[in-house]
């Protein structure tokens, strides 16, 4: 196919390949990066989910951090810093997920302690009752 003797057709062919690449490079270089909408939405969803599982009570620090990160992401969008905005959004999301997980763990432990306490009370009462009769 390729022939060194047909230099003109070869250079034309080369241009045909290079042109779309050049255009692509140009478009990426000059086009503004898009707003990271899905990342922001995912972060908002994660925060809402954390709030739903009482993270405000059990993991307040993490939830506050997540909200701060989301606010930072939104500020970055306004400042057209889309890469920064996306990173903040992702951090907000993971922080909110952590808040939810910590809340879940705290609640699970609290439930266990409650059961233990109830059982201990029961055993205590039982011993007191049988102690009285003896």
């Amino acid at each position, binding site marked *: 196919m390729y022939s060194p003797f047909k230099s003109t057709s070869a250079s034309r062919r080369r241009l045909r390949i290079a042109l779309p690449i050049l255009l692509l490079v140009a478009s990426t270089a000059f086009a503004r990066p898009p707003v990271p909408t899905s990342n922001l939405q995912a972060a908002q969803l994660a925060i809402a989910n954390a709030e739903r599982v009482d993270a405000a009570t059990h993991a307040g620090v993490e939830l506050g951090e997540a909200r701060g990160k989301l606010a930072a992401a939104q500020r970055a969008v306004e400042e057209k810093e889309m890469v920064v905005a996306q990173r903040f959004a992702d951090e907000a999301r*993971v922080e909110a997920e*952590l808040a939810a997980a*910590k809340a879940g763990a705290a609640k699970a432990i609290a439930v266990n302690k409650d059961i233990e306490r*109830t059982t201990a009370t029961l*055993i205590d009462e*039982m011993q007191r*009752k049988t102690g009285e009769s003896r």
Partner: protein
Amino acid sequence: MNTTNYSVTSSLIKVVVAAVLLASCASTPTRPAGSAEVRAKLTALQSDTALASGAPVALKEAESAVVVAEMIEKDLALAAHRVYIADRKVDIARALAVTHVAEQQRTALVEQGEKARLDSRTREADLARNEAAEQKLQAGQARSEADAALVAANSAQQQAMELQRQLEILQARPTDRGLVLTLGDTLFATGKSEIKSGATANLDKLTAFLNEYPQRTAVIEGYTDSMGSEEMNQSLSQRRADAVKGYLVGRGVSSERLSASGRGENSPVADNESAAGRQQNRRVEVVISPGAP
């Protein structure tokens, strides 16, 4: 000289090149700051036997994030971002594992609670059963006490009957003053106050009776017929009453329970004109108080 100079210069160049190469090697970008700490956190979680298997999916995600965070990256902000994400992913995996372990433990805790509740009910039932048994026992005791009371009542009745029998033996008469036992004149020789040795059968019965019923007291009264002077009869009756008292005291009856008095010719029970009547009037009466038996 020149050749040596050349060779020195060439070797110098070689050294410099090597040094530059080494330096470039040494300045090879290292792993991002903080990634080692995150890797350590992940390793700690993975080697925690209790938690390692608690949240496998989250742990795998954390591992991938740590691998990404460890990638050499010139963009320091991106590197920090990756470390941040990896750090939180490890924390998430730990929290989920803790939750999982707690939920697993809960099954055992609930079982313990159920067992305690069951034990409690069993013990309550046992207690109730024991109480019932105890009440039964108490009822039995009450019954046996009632039986004992009945036995006691019976024995009291028997004692009363025995008393009655003894009184019959003593030939005592129930009167307003109490039980009156009359000892005839055969107890004494005529005009004497010494008790005849062969005539004490009735006195011995009286002694036994008074010893058996220590609550009872007795008044001993001596009487005579109307023969002879009144003073002499009074004195004789007193001495005879005293003799009977002495006899009883000598056989264990407390003198505090006994009083003796001479009544002389008073209170005759028969006519003093006939010999038979006079014999009846010569007597000692023992009045036994109706004290508690």
